[in-house]
């Protein structure tokens, strides 16, 4: 069997040229899954047979002189909140256990059209609500770097799948940091583009005005390649931005000379020293590479948590109302429809989901709307405006992605707020609708990966990726979890 490259770009190049067989690529990844999935639990379902058949079709196309596309033969781990026709899609919730959507999400269609091969549906915090993947109804995912620790969340399954070498690419969704935080904790690249960059059609909504889909990859180049494939206007999503995006793969080598990198001086405190140390090293490296470091203020940044934990649950309380046992999914039988609703939803949703539905319903209810939801929308505007001012002075902003490295299971205890604070650095860009990405930048405590977050203004993915690529070039070499734990292939 030919050695299978780790990057999606190299795999696709090999498969397109005929020097690499997609079936071998798939087998190599299935072998790694067979080897370690038992301890990691990255997937809710592994699509071994479908992946093999898909790979064979890709190879046949190449043999016939065709081009399967820029992701030819690349195995993809899909977060299990994206609809896949005929394939169970659960959101890691009992309420959707066994549900097979009758349609594909737009990203799923685009990936397939680019020659990618779905290898499995990955675990998540139920309905993407959480920062550790501990809230899955099907059990937690473990961090491939240290299985006593969480992979982050909510897209922990996709992050872990990429870190463990189960797939070169994972797709996640990011409502308040659900791509970037697990990417940081798992030592991979995670990008959340501008709101409206990637279609949300077929993504099971958590908070509609915040949700965005993005990739997990091992390289910044792969991240750009994936966004080039899944980005772009979709007439099925009214909030999809109707402009053509310039390919991001073309900007990676431009360097950062002359770019203004913002340091937020009034950033909320609380990041661990090992994380802060890596952030400082990143500033130094970028300065070294020719960028200027500029101090900026984003005073409303610290109010992000409050605004987010009112707006997201409010939207979620409405988005999750459709899980009522009438048309699909779980139903708990009862003597009348109203009782059936309450019993079904009580049995089908986990604690965190119920908590957020309660919080969101309360924030929208008569007498409280103005004090909570209404005020949160105003704070959102302040955050947006503060960012806009900062981006007049700086091209991108650099922050920690997560306040700490991967933490042990159960360490956030019973206090939901402690878990919510995990998202303090990632949330504001969701509220503003701005792009953000996490790039691995060495290790912190216990040799665990640390990510640095690059934030940019609306639709300025190009600059964000230039900086991300520069960081990757000067990042200290880190032993990958795959190398660390060996591989069956």
């Amino acid at each position: 069997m030919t050695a299978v490259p780790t990057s999606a770009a190299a795999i696709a190049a090999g498969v397109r040229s005929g020097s690499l067989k997609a079936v071998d690529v798939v087998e190599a990844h299935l072998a790694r899954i067979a080897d370690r999935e038992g301890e990691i639990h990255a997937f809710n379902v592994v699509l071994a047979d479908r992946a093999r058949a898909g790979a064979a079709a890709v190879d046949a196309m190449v043999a016939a002189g065709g081009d399967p596309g820029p992701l030819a033969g690349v195995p993809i781990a899909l977060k299990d909140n994206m609809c896949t026709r005929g394939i169970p899609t659960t959101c890691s919730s009992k309420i959707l256990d066994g549900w097979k959507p009758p349609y594909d999400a737009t990203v799923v269609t685009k990936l397939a059209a680019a020659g990618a091969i779905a290898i499995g549906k990955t675990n998540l915090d139920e309905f993407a609500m959480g920062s550790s993947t501990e809230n899955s109804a099907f059990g937690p995912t473990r961090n491939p770097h240290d299985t006593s620790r969480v992979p982050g969340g909510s897209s922990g399954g996709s992050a872990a799948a990429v870190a463990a070498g189960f797939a070169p690419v994972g797709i996640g969704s990011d409502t308040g940091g659900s791509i970037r935080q697990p990417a940081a904790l798992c030592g991979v690249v995670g990008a959340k583009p501008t709101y409206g960059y990637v279609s949300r059609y077929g993504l099971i909504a958590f908070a509609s005005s915040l949700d965005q889909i993005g990739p997990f990859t091992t390289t910044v180049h792969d991240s750009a390649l994936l966004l080039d494939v899944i980005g772009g206007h979709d007439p099925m999503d009214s909030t999809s931005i109707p402009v053509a995006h310039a390919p991001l793969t073309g900007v990676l080598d431009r360097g950062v000379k002359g770019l203004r990198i913002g340091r937020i001086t009034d950033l909320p405190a609380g990041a661990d020293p090992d994380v802060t140390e890596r952030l400082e090293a990143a500033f130094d490296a970028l300065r070294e590479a020719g960028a200027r470091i500029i101090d900026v203020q984003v005073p409303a940044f610290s109010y992000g948590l409050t605004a987010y934990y009112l707006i997201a649950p409010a939207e979620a309380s409405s988005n999750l109302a459709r899980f009522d046992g009438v048309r699909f999914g779980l139903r708990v039988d009862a003597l009348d429809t109203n009782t059936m609703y309450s019993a079904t939803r009580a049995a089908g949703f986990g604690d965190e989901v119920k908590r957020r539905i309660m919080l969101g319903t309360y924030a929208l209810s008569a007498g409280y709307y103005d004090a909570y939801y209404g005020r949160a929308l105003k704070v959102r505007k302040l955050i947006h405006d503060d960012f806009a001012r900062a981006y007049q002075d700086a091209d991108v902003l650099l922050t920690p992605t997560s306040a700490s490295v991967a933490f042990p299971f159960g360490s956030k205890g019973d206090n939901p707020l402690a878990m919510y604070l995990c998202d303090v650095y990632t949330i504001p860009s969701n509220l503003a609708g701005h792009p953000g990405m996490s790039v691995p930048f060495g290790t912190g405590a216990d040799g665990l990966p640390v990510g640095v977050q690059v934030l940019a203004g609306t639709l300025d993915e190009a600059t964000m990726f230039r900086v991300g690529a520069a960081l990757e070039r000067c990042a200290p070499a880190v032993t990958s979890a795959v190398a660390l734990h060996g591989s069956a292939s």
Partner: protein
Amino acid sequence: MSAGARVDPRAEQVLEYGYQLVVGLEVHVELDTATKLFSASANRFGDDPNTNIDPVTLGLPGALPVLNRHAVELAMRIGAALDCTIQPSTFHRKNYFYPDMPKAYQISQYDQPINIDGHLDLPGGKRIGIERAHLEEDTGKSTHVGGSGGRIHGSDHSLIDFNRAGVPLVEIVSRPDLRTADEARQYVNELRAILVAIGASDAKMEEGSMRCDANVSVHQPGTPLGTRCEIKNVNSVRSLGRAIDYEARRQVDLLASGGIVRQETRHWDETDGRTHTLRTKEDADDYRYFLEPDLVPIVPSAEWIQAVRDALPMLPAARRARLSEASGSPAYSEAVMAAIDRGQDAYVLAVGHLGGDIGRALVHVKEAYAEQGPSPTVPAQDLALLTTLEVDGKLTATQAKAVLAEIVAAGGGDAAAIAAAKGFEAMDNSALESVVDQAIAADPEAWVKFCAGEGKAMGALVGAVMKATGGKADGKVVTAVLNQRRAAQP
């Protein structure tokens, strides 16, 4: 409703004990689009259950709404026809659980509706304010199985069909300017005529494509408006009047006996002719309205709005006036109303342009074109010829009717040729006079009665003449001869 029975709309109905009725109407109309408001499933009445469905219609996880441009255009057309201000608008989510509401929220316009501040003029000229006319999606349909008569109470279970879910609706909310049940009926009839004329909806109450809720209150003139009750489940214009009258009496009786009217939603029961409490204000759900994050605002440009206004066809009131003037029939005569209702007024006018008689054409169209749409199959030219023969005395009204029946059945035809083939020729008057005299001689009893002024007797004599002439005689001429003979009596 009959045109003759119109109450003077300016009259303010005074109820018992001096109470005054105040009514506002909320009319929902289904728009005549090919697809739903937010998805590409067919908007079609009467299909097999759950066949016009898609992820959006069913509220499946991950589905997203995309707004139907034509629905927006039709909503704007309604706004233009009701002389509303057409403005930038947004959609909200109205959150409530009900099995025929797939997402457990309805997408509806809330504080920024597309149309505001319009009006509708009742036939008598009274102007009724339109507060708003906004876009929203329809629900699915529940059928209650078991129990008695398909009612929700006592049913064993319910079955849901989502074909109607997501069908575009415009809700037209009047100001509380209506003062009688008859005004309410006139309002609904006029609104219906407008909606049909502008192609916005077929507005059929019996098929549910037009639905009407009435906000009814009573008060003493000069005092603030009373507490209102919303009456639902009114399924015809006739029921609307009955429901309002019943509800007004109920409220007056309550107040007169020292009670108070509670704000509540009441259900009209067609069978017992009463309204019943459906839910009180205290039971009202908390809808938790918030801006729909999956949709973006509608901001119609000034050019678009102007184009919609410019493209508006002539409205029923103006068309009635035009036809009335051209035909000499009153604007609210049954013939004029029927022609406008069926959209056949342009056709009648075309008969006139082709040299035909508009008055006769109007009568023929009313009687013979009930099954024809706005573009009758009979060429206007053919009807023009028929009316000409008629006015020229070449055909009697009865003969013309017979000839037209053949023309309509064949989708056209030469009236003169058909009349000739039928052997129709108008009798000359001298021949007719002798037939009349024979009829008088044959039935002296009728003659005596006729001379005494009994209408029935005249009918018997005319009938005898018609029988003798095989219908060829012109009824008017026969009557004239009979009157002549009577006048010549010593």
